[in-house]
């Protein structure tokens, strides 16, 4: 019961914060920002780890292992692609 209240607050605050964090983003950054936040959504990997590691039924372990693999692709691939994209914006002669 009490925990549900805390969760409600955490959820509410996170959502508001998520809204506030993104303000005016120049068009050039739309794709990297999308890609970078997509990598963050790979956080589900943490959940997958606990599923795959716990000694449950066979099915849960299988599901967990697939989830780990999939989420890892998302995380590793996501961060690397984002970094590659951003690396290409080397700004020669730009003011800042």
């Amino acid at each position, binding site marked *: 019961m009490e925990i*549900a209240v805390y*969760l409600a607050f955490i*959820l509410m605050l*996170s*959502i*508001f*914060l*998520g*809204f506030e*964090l*993104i303000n005016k*983003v120049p*068009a050039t*950054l*739309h*794709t*990297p*920002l*999308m*890609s*970078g936040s*997509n990598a*963050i*959504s*790979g*956080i*589900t*990997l*943490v*959940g997958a780890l*606990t*599923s795959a*590691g716990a000694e449950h*039924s066979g*099915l*849960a*372990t299988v*599901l*967990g*292992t*697939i*989830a*780990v*693999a*999939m*989420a*890892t*692709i*998302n995380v590793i691939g*996501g*961060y690397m*692609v984002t*970094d590659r*994209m*951003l690396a*290409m*914006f*080397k*700004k020669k002669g*730009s003011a800042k």
Partner: protein
Amino acid sequence: MGIELLVNLSYVAAAVLFIFGLKMLGSPATARKGNLVSAVGMFIAVVVTLLDQSIIDYKWIIAGIIVGGAIGAMVARSVEMTGMPEMVALFNGFGGVASLFVGWAALYGMDASAFQLITIILSILIGGVTFSGSMVAWGKLSERISGKPLVFGGQRVFNILLILAIVISSVMFTLNPESGIFLYIVIGLALLLGIMLVIPIGGADMPVVISLLNSYSGLAACAAGIAINNIILIVAGALVGASGIILTQIMCKAMNRSLSNVLFSGFSAVSAGGAAAKIEGEVKSMTADDAYYVLEAAASVVIVPGYGMAVAQAQHVVKELQELLEQNGAEVVYAIHPVAGRMPGHMNVLLAEADVSYDLLLEMDAVNPRMETFDVAIVIGANDVVNPAAREMEGSPIYGMPVINVDMARNVFVMKRSMASGFAGIDNPLFFKENTRMLFGDAKEMLGNIIKAFS
């Protein structure tokens, strides 16, 4: 207890890093560092999770991480620049399916309360929609399936029935969590819904759709987090979910569309198709040598690149031409449309690769007001983003989209291989204007010919 505290404090730290990372990703000067910051957060979160006592068997985890990490790294390394947007769609889909599986696996090994069952079914649903939707988006962007909006009669009715069916089978599942049948039905229907939601949307709008699906995959992770009571999933998922929606809206605004227009306009595409107005005028083509004479005399030139420059990989030749023109005493600037190419920032990235100075890349709003002052506008493989129909033809599907008004320059050179249409699949009255000359051919070759004439 000690370890649990460490784990949880690290989760707080990871969340802080995600927050900073997201914030920094939004501004050009800090974007790359921001990505790194958020990656560090992810690394911390994963490592401390592995310390958790409830994990007793590492072999599957290690297997999964090795396989996933290898694939992810390989793909991310090898993908070409132009293929990156579809890569994001693909990764996003994998994230969605992971959330689906996490929710599913949570069914076993715990006595789920009704509340938990609801969050489980939510994570399965959202994860499923994210997965199949992202796959369709990936197919459309990479042109594995047609980019055209796919519509059929009764689509709306079908979708409404589909959503109804999902609600009913979800309720049935929460009431009978033991019987697997409803679970499979929900999974199947969720996958179907994801497909149905994305197929009626045109390929040109896929970036927006991916951004939206990215927001969904955040929500899926958040729902999975509530299901397994993991706070970092909840926080990070909600952050991505909310910021993704804002980003989606920003992207829509850059295209002068509303989100609902992007998502549902495909339905009306069938009827609006044939209504295009007649285009009058004559197409005049010219040779590279003719172009050279005009360029040689020009004092100010604006270059408008588009998707064709990416296809022809002409960015380096473009830069060469720029230098020649500058040596010749002309002012050269680039006009970059926010959706030129196949992803936002596509042109910026390519030109940066060719070492074009950042200062010369002007945004649409900076160039349009002074378009009359340019002697020549060179359109290199762009089509939709310079289509005056967006300004002039009320019936046109792109009417109202802000475009670069090259037709207002004194001379317009258009480099493309044929009279074919661009991504939006519509004709371009620009090609028929009095002051337009067509340079038919591959952009790279054509530019090469002009450069040869200079030397």
